[in-house]
């Protein structure tokens, strides 16, 4: 394989060839990207104003009808509520746990590498395998979860068949699956804080808590902000674990936005409606990110 500029005499080639060379070097990425990202982004927006069953029937322009139908559907609001509950349940828990663990992993500990590996293992597992394992953990008669409750004399719970318990079960599993990822981000952030801040504070007589609140937390804030934004986005898009752990049940109690979108697109093939759901999801995530940026950016310290 050779570039188009290969035939040029090397010495004659100057900046002039750069445009052509750029086309050559960018073309594989840009072709795939145009077909599977740019075209879809535009086309799904267009589709969201159409009524169209993919395997039969013509495309008909129906204006905002899809959006109106979604907003009138009680199921959509239930699904949105479930997604918000999942997000509110996982994000703070995930962030506190990953920050605390990263903080202590930064201390003098025997076997630090081993510990880090242990905390990180759930991240690298596939969500499908993880959810299959957790179905077994939540098994009502012989599972670990109820055994653990039994140890503390708490009555057994039918985890995946009780609407409230199922969402709780999903949240616990979601946190378990992903806190290791944020732990790595926080670790990197912590290592980026210069040691002399702590030394200076210690000389000034600041205790452990003071140092944590007045040095670690503010200097870590760019990382915390990034982690928060990404974790919220991620939890709004949860799907795999829901599909395998609960299939959205019982009684739709764990049905989340992407699951709803999946059903409409690939069960009912109602592509217009599903595209409108996708754009609503996009809008929600976008607005949430903007709100977080707007209100939290002033609180983020970039160096001193």
């Amino acid at each position: 394989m050779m570039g188009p500029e290969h035939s040029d005499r090397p010495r004659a080639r100057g900046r002039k060839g750069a445009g052509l060379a750029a086309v050559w070097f960018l073309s594989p990425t840009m072709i795939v990207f145009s077909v599977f990202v740019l075209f879809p982004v535009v086309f799904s927006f267009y589709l969201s104003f159409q009524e169209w069953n993919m395997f039969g029937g013509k495309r008909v322009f129906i204006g905002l009808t899809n959006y109106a139908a979604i907003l009138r559907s009680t199921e959509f609001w239930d699904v949105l509520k479930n997604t918000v509950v999942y997000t509110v349940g996982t994000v703070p828990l995930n962030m506190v746990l990953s920050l605390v663990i990263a903080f202590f992993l930064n201390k003098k500990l025997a076997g630090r590498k081993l510990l880090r590996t242990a905390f990180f293992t759930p991240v690298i597992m596939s969500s499908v395998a993880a959810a299959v394992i957790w179905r077994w953990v939540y098994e009502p008669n012989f599972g670990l979860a109820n055994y653990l409750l039994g140890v503390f004399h708490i009555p057994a719970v039918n985890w995946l068949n009780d609407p409230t318990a199922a969402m709780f079960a999903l949240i616990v599993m979601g946190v378990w699956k992903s806190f290791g990822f944020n732990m790595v981000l926080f670790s990197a952030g912590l290592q980026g804080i210069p040691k002399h801040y702590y030394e200076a504070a210690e000389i000034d007589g600041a205790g452990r808590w003071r140092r944590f609140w007045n040095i670690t937390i503010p200097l870590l804030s760019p990382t915390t902000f990034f982690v928060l934004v990404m974790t919220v986005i991620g939890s709004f898009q949860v799907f795999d674990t829901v599909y395998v752990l609960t299939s959205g049940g019982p009684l739709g109690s764990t049905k989340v936005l992407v699951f709803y979108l999946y059903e409409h697109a690939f069960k009912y093939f109602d592509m217009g409606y599903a595209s409108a759901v996708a754009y609503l999801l996009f809008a929600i995530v976008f607005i949430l990110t903007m709100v977080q940026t707007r209100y939290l950016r002033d609180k983020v310290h970039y160096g001193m």
Partner: protein
Amino acid sequence: MKMNAVKRLSGSILLHVVMYGLAFITVAPFLWMVLTSFKGLGDIMVYPPSWWPKHGSLNNYIDALQAAPFGRYYANSLFVAISVTLGQMVTCSMAAYAFARLKFRGRDALFYVFLGTMMIPGQVTMIPSFMVLYWLGWIDTYQALIVPGLASAFGTFLLRQFFMTIPSELEEAASIDGCSRWGILWRIILPLAKPALATLAVFTFMGVFNDFLWALIVVNSEEMRTVQLGLAIFRDRYQTDWGQLMAGSVMATLPILLLFFVAQKYFIQGITLSGMKD
């Protein structure tokens, strides 16, 4: 002084106990999966649950392999993951070279548009991508699983950032000696960029091997199923056959786990880099 030392020591012991306790809780479901996969039915349906298999055997694995063609699933997953990984290393390094080294009009604008697309949730592009594959007649083929993954904004960005740190004097010398741009990328930049390429490779491989939703959408037939899709369907069919389900989960996890133990450094590096987008 002495009191301080005692206090410090007890604090350190407490810290170790808490951290190792948390680490054990984290890996407990995982250990339970592995141990259950070697248990017979008599060991599985017991209360209180027992950790260690009394009559350890490979029967669950044998049964699972007979009930579903996990071997075929494996071959599919590995083929798809390796193809996408190799493909992305080529496409991303070419694009990254253009963004890092070639001066052409509109370069920075194009780069930011490209980066901006990382913000778009995959669900927005999912439906039209599926249609494109349908129109191409690619549903239920390897192309459907591979081709959409052959470009990556994240990978291009990661390599571009790394290429920028490589001093360009070497390339200028090579260029004077008559080396083409392709030769510069291939013989000078890429050998220096091995850590970045390794990071991209482990991330892409893991992402593709673990992917579920895309396979769920574009695969219909049993022969085309990936390990994750196969396992999800297996769990639908054998709801409570825990031994076999755990054997299947072990099989679905093993390659990534092995990769992780070999290349842990690159996993950590990749995540750290993803946090430095600003």
